[in-house]
C-alpha cells in the first residue's frame, strides 16, 4: 500500500503528459462551431443571379442541404471548386452557396466560366449572414438538416478525403433522419 502511494506523482505526471501530448496535435484553426445544433440565423438576402429576388432562411428548410461559403477573392475556394462541381453532378445533396463579401459581377463571371455547382446562391455582400454564422474565413461548409438546424461545420476546403470521411457519412445519417421523421409525420 505504502509503495503504491509513492507511485501517485508518477501517475499524475503521466496523466498530464498524455493530456498535453494530445494538445500538440490539435489544429488551432479547427474551432468548435458555436452554431452546431442551432437553427440557421434569420436572414433575407438577394439571390446572386437574380437581383431583387430574395431568399430567406425559411427557403433552406425541408431538405438536408450543404451551405458553402465562398468568394472570388478566396484561393482555397478555387481549389475546392472542381470537387463541388463533381458533387453537384452526383445529385446527393443540394449545395447552397453563400457568396461572402464579394461583388456580384465577378462572382457571376466566375460561375459562368468555372461552372456552377450551386443549387442556389445567396448574395451576402456585407458578410452579415457570414457574421451571424460565425464565419471567419472562406471556404466554410455547413451541413443543415431538414428542419433548418445546423448540424456540422467544416472550415477549410472540401476535398475527397473530408467528404468521404466526414461529410458524406453525416449527410447520409441526416437524410435517414429526415426520411424517418417524414414517415412518422
Amino acid at each position, binding site marked *: 500500500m505504502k509503495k503504491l502511494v509513492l507511485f501517485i506523482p508518477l501517475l499524475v505526471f503521466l496523466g498530464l503528459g498524455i493530456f498535453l501530448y494530445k494538445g500538440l496535435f490539435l489544429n*488551432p484553426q479547427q*474551432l*468548435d*462551431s*458555436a*452554431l452546431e445544433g442551432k437553427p440557421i440565423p434569420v436572414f433575407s438576402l438577394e439571390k446572386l443571379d437574380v437581383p431583387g429576388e430574395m431568399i430567406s432562411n425559411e427557403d433552406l428548410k425541408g431538405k438536408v442541404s450543404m451551405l458553402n461559403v465562398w468568394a472570388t477573392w478566396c484561393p482555397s475556394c478555387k481549389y475546392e471548386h472542381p470537387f463541388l462541381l463533381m458533387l453537384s453532378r452526383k445529385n446527393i445533396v443540394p449545395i447552397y452557396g453563400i457568396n461572402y463579401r464579394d461583388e456580384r459581377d465577378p462572382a457571376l463571371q466566375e460561375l459562368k466560366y468555372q461552372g456552377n455547382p450551386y443549387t442556389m446562391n445567396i448574395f451576402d455582400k456585407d458578410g452579415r449572414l457570414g*457574421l451571424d*454564422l*460565425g464565419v*471567419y474565413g472562406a471556404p466554410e461548409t455547413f451541413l443543415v438538416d431538414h428542419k433548418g438546424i445546423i448540424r456540422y461545420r467544416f472550415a477549410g476546403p472540401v476535398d475527397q478525403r473530408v467528404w468521404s470521411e466526414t461529410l458524406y457519412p453525416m449527410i447520409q445519417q441526416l437524410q435517414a433522419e429526415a426520411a424517418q421523421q417524414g414517415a412518422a409525420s
Partner: protein
Amino acid sequence: MIRALLVFCCSVLFSWQVLATPVDTYEFKSAENQKRALALAHELRCPQCQNQNLIDSNSPIAKDLRLEVYKMVDAGKDDDQIIEFMTSRYGDFVLYKPRVTAKTYILWLGPVMLLALGLLVGFIFVRKQRIQAEAPSELTEEQKAELDALLKSDAEQDDGNKK
C-alpha cells in the same frame, strides 16, 4: 528657431495621444462609450488570427467585429450582451478570459487543487516525521542483548588498544 523647437517639442509630447487610438473612422456618441468599446474590443480575440485581439488585428473580420462592438456600445447594449453576441457566433474561443463552466472547472480549480494536494502531502509528511522523532524508542530484549554485545566488544577493543 526657438519657436520651431517649441513646436517640435510639443508635437513629440502630444504624439502619444495620436498613437493610442486605433485607426478606425468611427464616431462615438460619447467619450465614455468610446472607452468602454475599446476596452471590450481589447478583451475579445480575433477568431481568424487567433493571437491578437480585435484592436490589434488587421484582418477584415476583426475590423467588422470591432465595428460591430462599437455600434452595439453606442446602441446602449451592456458588456454581457455584447459578449453574448460574440460567443453565440464564435464560441468561447473569442474570450481571452475563459468563463467558469462545467467544462472549465479543471482549468480554474486545477492549480488550486494541486497546491492544496501538495500542502496536504507536505503536512502529512512533516507530521509523520515529528511523531517518529517524538516517539520514545523502546528496545526489544533481543536488541538490548545485541547492543550489550556490541558495547562489550567495543570496550574490549579499547582495552586492547590501550595495551
